[in-house]
């Protein structure tokens, strides 16, 4: 670990702050990020969730989960695991502790899919991470309640380097949630994260990511990778509901035969938020299946670019996978890019993709108004109806309710501009 950190630090120091360009029209730049003014912040351990900023308790109900670990800034400040789960061999702890107490497992999987030389921020994370989270579900075990990880940023000037490692054993079943939460802070902050999940053969995992960094200036530059082994299944639902500037790479790898994944994402940007997502559905082996659906909505002056790649490697025959992405512009200044793409290096596969960028359908609005429903309510209902199939894929009642609530709040905040834009058209 020491060595890998040192090597990563070298890369971090060497690499310049990147600017990402796509298709010649889209740029994500970190020009305005004052990286030297940000630093890791340390906090004391919290005895209960009440001792933490209320964004945590608002999003997490301790009775509902099988375990919870919270990192605030650079410190691991809360850790809970249902004793009956611990007794069965489930591990949910900080990655720092796991390096000591579960060295074998960590060594086997850490960094297998995310390396330090993927860019300045990947290197930063690899070199500078503290706290972190480690989940291990032993083989054959079915865990009913969700296992929860929370990364919290509550002060401007914070740099949070996060690392999560999840290992799910053969034939195990579980539900994992990782949230990024922040209140509306007044100033800049950075979350640079690396997330790796390894789904063992025959295992079945529900994975949800909820990013809600509030309406301050939180920057999120992260990479998340899920690897699915033989005959295993993972249903991954990333949800982006807040962040000043987000640049994320989300990869799902069907690494062995029979693996299957469903990747269903949702974003809703507002104000002057900037969202840049690149997802890859990678099939390294044949007889695998995938399904990617991303839906987004934009208000204010926000901008979102979603690039979704299906990549089928040589020899991965009899792969069947599909990708669709939709964005709904709700204000005159919002901008969205939807870029589905394909790299297919073998034959005898089926892969299709499609994308749309559009606006509220005025016919639907007129229809609803003709039934007495005012414009603002009609728009709200249509946007909620648009997201509903994606929200349902969470298959997680309380998280679904939380997401629906946030979407409704965003629509209320943007009500005037949405109504005005809709009426103008």
């Amino acid at each position: 670990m020491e060595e890998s950190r040192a090597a990563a630090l070298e890369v971090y120091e060497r690499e310049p702050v990147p600017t990402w360009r796509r298709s010649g029209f889209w740029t994500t730049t970190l020009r305005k990020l004052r990286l030297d003014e940000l630093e890791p912040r340390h906090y004391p351990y919290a005895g209960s969730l009440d001792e933490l900023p209320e964004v945590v308790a608002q999003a997490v109900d301790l009775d509902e989960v099988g375990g919870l670990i919270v990192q605030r800034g650079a410190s691991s400040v809360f850790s809970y695991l249902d004793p009956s789960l611990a007794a069965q061999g489930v591990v949910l702890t900080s990655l720092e502790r796991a390096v000591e107490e579960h060295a074998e497992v960590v060594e086997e999987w850490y960094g297998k899919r995310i390396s330090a030389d993927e860019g300045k921020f990947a290197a930063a994370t690899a070199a500078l991470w503290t706290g972190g989270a480690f989940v291990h579900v032993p083989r054959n075990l079915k865990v009913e309640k969700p296992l929860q990880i929370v990364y919290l940023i509550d002060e401007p000037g914070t740099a949070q380097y996060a690392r999560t490692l999840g290992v799910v054993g053969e034939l195990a079943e579980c539900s994992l949630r990782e949230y990024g939460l922040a209140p509306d802070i007044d100033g800049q902050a950075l979350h640079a994260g690396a997330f790796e999940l390894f789904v063992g053969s025959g295992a079945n995992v529900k994975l949800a990511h909820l990013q809600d960094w509030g309406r301050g200036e939180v920057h999120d530059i992260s990479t998340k990778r899920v690897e699915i082994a033989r005959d295993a299944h993972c249903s991954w639902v990333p949800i982006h509901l807040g962040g000043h500037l987000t640049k994320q790479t989300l990869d799902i790898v069907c690494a062995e035969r029979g693996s299957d994944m469903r990747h269903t994402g949702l974003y809703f940007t507002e104000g002057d938020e900037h969202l840049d997502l690149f997802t890859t559905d990678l099939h390294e082996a044949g007889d695998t299946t995938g399904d990617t659906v991303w839906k987004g909505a934009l208000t204010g002056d926000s901008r979102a670019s979603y690039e979704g790649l299906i990549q089928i490697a040589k020899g991965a025959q009899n792969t069947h996978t599909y990708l669709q992405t939709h964005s709904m512009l709700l204000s005159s200044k919002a901008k969205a890019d939807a870029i589905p793409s394909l790299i297919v290096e073998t034959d005898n596969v089926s892969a299709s993709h499609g994308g749309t960028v559009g606006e509220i359908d005025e016919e639907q609005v007129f229809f609803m108004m003709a039934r007495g429903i005012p414009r603002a309510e009609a728009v709200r209902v249509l946007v909620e109806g648009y997201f509903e199939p994606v929200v349902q894929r969470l298959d997680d009642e309380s998280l679904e309710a939380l997401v629906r609530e946030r979407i409704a709040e965003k629509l209320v905040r943007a009500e005037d501009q949405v109504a005005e834009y809709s009426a103008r058209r």
Partner: protein
Amino acid sequence: MGLEIRNLHVRTEDREILRGVNLKVEKGEVHALMGPNGSGKSTLANTIMGNPTYEVTEGQVLFNGEDLTEAAPDERARAGLFLAFQYPATIPGVSVANFLRMAVNAGRDEPIKIKDFGQFMRRNMELLKIDPEFSKRYLNEGFSGGEKKRAEILQLAMLKPQIAVLDETDSGLDIDALRIVSEGVNALQGPDMGTLIITHYTRILGYIRPEFVHIMLEGRIVREGGAELADQLEDKGYDFVREEVEASGAA
């Protein structure tokens, strides 16, 4: 009182479609508006409901004496106007039941009690021979033409308007569906509701007998009469009206 259209001129981007329409529908009356395709029937229906695609260049839409020409569609609906669409929109993610409750509540000061709503909805679904399971489906998503039209009439039943405009409700319906829809409308028809049936064909008028028949050609109402006018149309087609109009130089 009721619906009054006065000298209505309507255009879209390209051209003028309604060229001075006059029409009155009182509560308790059943009117039929007929005409060949392109005569402006749907434009009139949509303009009555305030579709922003159409621009009123002259004339008025009055309802119970109030000028609604500039009113938004939801205001018109809450005032007591209803339009059964020829091509109803699909509302994904919203079940029939939820949509109905939303629409019913839009016209009330206090939300309707869930239990009362449930009973009311079930009664109306029975009246229209709609399978109760239907209420859980997303509105109009994957519905057949007949199912969409029956969903429109279900909404009519739930909203109890004063004036109901049915825009080609009969199109795309088979005989059985047509009969069920007509029976539904007839059951709702009474002294408190006026009905304007807009149709191209005379078929529906066999089930819902109109007192007044208006024939539209090229954006104007050119002939008016009683139910027997519809019978004449059935026999002779629209040509006889065209000939009459040309002969009298009214075109």
